[in-house]
């Protein structure tokens, strides 16, 4: 039987608004995280991931409920519990005017390390994060990716049993992102550490996790391995047709549904708004919310739409779907075929995309 390192029971966090009404940030979470696994919390921004983890790591006091790490209550035995925990916050929580070594040295002392043990731990972390040659440089001279690596290194100094990483890849370039993901894999494979990982990127959760908890509006709405979760939406592929500004009526969707293998077809249009102050620009860069890609549109052309078709064998249905679109005069700008993934699970469970 697997042994739980983290146990959370009925964790709840509420805030009071100025008008006296209560906001439920986390609405009663029960959770076990097992030793040696990478557990990811997946959910859109504001879903309650960070609040949940902040309560588990002792930063926030829960309004109700309790969490334990290694059997120690984070509220009643915080010192014992925190010795088992290494936290890597989303923010670069470092002293920018100190060197990487000075930062590691200070935080190591806070974990109770000292003397040779501390010096060895710092050297080991610098080696692990590949920052040995920049150890004496001030952190504010580092690139974003390097700062992230020091940030991670601080959480590993005391060789904790549990490492909590809160969206550690936010704002880093693809190369640094890859490096961070590899670090997480090494923590699991080489150091047998338990990792609690939060992200809003399903690709990361899918790649790293033994188990995933999908969280939305302060509740865990699905929990299991990636395979178990994907099974919830069946074996359907998603075909996403970018139709730009065209208006798509129901007749198009009805024709699509008649194609063999297709179970559903939906149309979604987005109002893409330029950034504040850029409304009058001839060209505006906007983020296409469905894919997260950036595109340039002309002022006044700030709508975008896509048809999503669910099909059991998507690639096989594609030629027929394109033919029907052509027949009905619908211009398809691009097509993307997506196999079942956590994004689809989230969409299936909430009716919304992860990035919404």
């Amino acid at each position, binding site marked *: 039987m697997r042994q739980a390192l983290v146990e959370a029971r009925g964790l709840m966090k509420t805030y009071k608004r100025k008008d006296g009404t209560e906001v439920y940030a986390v609405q009663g979470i029960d959770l076990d995280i097992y030793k040696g696994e990478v557990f990811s919390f997946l959910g859109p921004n504001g879903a309650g991931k960070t609040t949940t983890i*902040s309560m588990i*790591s*002792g*930063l*926030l006091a829960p309004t109700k409920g309790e969490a334990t790490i290694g059997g120690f209550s984070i509220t009643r035995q*915080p*010192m*014992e519990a*925190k*010795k088992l*925990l290494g*936290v890597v*916050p989303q*923010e*670069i*929580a*470092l*002293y*920018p*005017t*100190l060197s990487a070594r*000075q930062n590691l040295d*200070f*935080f190591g*002392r*806070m*974990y*109770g390390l*000292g003397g040779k043990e501390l010096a060895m731990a710092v050297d080991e972390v610098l080696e692990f994060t590949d920052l040995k040659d920049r150890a004496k440089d001030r952190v504010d001279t580092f690139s974003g990716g390097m700062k992230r690596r020091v940030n991670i290194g*601080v959480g590993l100094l005391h060789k904790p049993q549990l490492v909590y990483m809160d969206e550690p890849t936010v704002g880093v370039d693809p190369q640094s992102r890859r490096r961070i993901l590899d670090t997480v894999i090494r923590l699991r494979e080489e150091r047998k550490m338990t990792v609690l990982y939060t992200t809003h990127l399903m690709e990361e959760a899918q790649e790293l996790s033994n188990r995933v908890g999908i969280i939305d509006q302060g509740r865990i709405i699905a929990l299991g391995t990636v395979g178990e979760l994907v099974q919830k939406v069946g074996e359907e592929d998603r075909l996403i047709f970018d139709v730009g500004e065209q208006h798509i009526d129901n007749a198009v969707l009805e024709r699509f549904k008649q194609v063999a293998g297709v179970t559903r077809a939906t149309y979604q249009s987005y109002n893409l708004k330029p950034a504040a102050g850029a409304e009058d620009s001839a060209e505006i860069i906007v983020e296409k919310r469905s894919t997260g890609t950036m595109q340039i549109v002309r002022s006044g052309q700030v709508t975008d739409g896509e048809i999503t078709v669910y099909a059991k064998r998507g690639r096989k249905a594609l030629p027929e779907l394109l033919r029907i679109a052509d027949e009905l005069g619908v211009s398809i700008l691009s097509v993307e075929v997506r196999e079942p993934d956590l994004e689809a699970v989230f969409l299936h469970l909430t009716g919304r995309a992860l990035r919404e």
Partner: protein
Amino acid sequence: MRKILSITFNDMILYFRDPGAVIGTFLIPVVFAVVLGFAFSGNNGPTQVRIDVIDNDNTALSQLFLTNLRQANTALVLCPADNSEDDFCRLGDDPALTEERSLGRLSNNDTLALLVIPAGFEASVEANQPVSVTYRSNENAAAPTFILQAVQAVVQRMGGALVASNVATNTVAEALPFDDDAARDAFRQQAYDEAAQLWAENPFSVSYVAAAGAPQASNSQGGFGQSVPGMASMFVTFTVLISAINLIRERKNWTLQRLTTMPVSRAQILAGKILMYFLLGMIQFIAMFGFGLLVTTILSNFSENVTPLYLGQDALGLLLIMASLTLCMTALGFLMGTLIRTEMQGAALLNLLGLSLAPLGGAWWPLDIVPEFMRVVGHISPIAWAMDGFRKLLFEQGTLVSVLPEVGIMLAMAAVFFVFAITRFKIE
């Protein structure tokens, strides 16, 4: 304890990482202290200052002495004789002065000096017998130098003239006796008038006695006795209140939140940070007094207006005053840190507090020269209590025991600020 010291040490490194910190902490305060020290030095006193005069002789000569004193410096108001209708002398309903009452007035700063002319003053002078006028001073930067100088000038002028007239009269009398006493007095007056400008030697001297009565030579501080503790108190206040902004910055950088996820208690974090600002304030205080002593010692070789800074006779008392003010301001800084939300708010509040508490508390000028109600209001500022303590130690030969009331009040203020700060302190 190791974790507390590590937080303190780390914060100290962070503070001095900024090259501007050394300039702001040490250089600028010293420059201010030197400039203000010179401004308060020399004869440039306030427009009117009170001197208590007890004339136990009450003769023509003693009155002449006082008239000459008034002429020597028109800023001097001789109490009670020259009291104004609105009671500038602060005598209340009872205008009579006794030596005991005046000594009390000295320690309360109701008067800056006491001059006692002994009974038999005129007779002694005429008989060529030594006689002393007693001058007691509540030494501070603004007044005593020019008060003492005025007294000495009168003593010199009158003494010289009296000696000359006595010698001339006696010499003439031996060779050519006067017809009567009136002729003798007329000759003596004529000789006095002519000799008034020819001061030879002093037939009587001024014996200077410090207010607390200790047998101590003059510890005239010049302006630096005011400017060094004043500027040190003000800049320590600024330095320590910056703790509020640093708390906001640490929250923004998330380093404070990160500490709470580590096996460190909230009390240890607070203690480490409080200790850092307390030590920083103490270092700055000691450095300021050290620099003050060094600079005044060097400058005294080049300027008559500068005397080496006198640090009193009780170093422990001095340290206790410094520690009490630093602790009080550290507590106020942490309280500020719980009230503000942004660094901008912190900077605004820092300037407001620093630039109001310092002048209000007598860091810029002595509270002796401000109206009574301002002196009362000024004691809202912890700096006023510190300056009172410094004055006792640096000017009045005070000891640790004599500054305990000031220390107690500052520590009580610190306790109140800490209680509010700790109950309001949130890390997240």
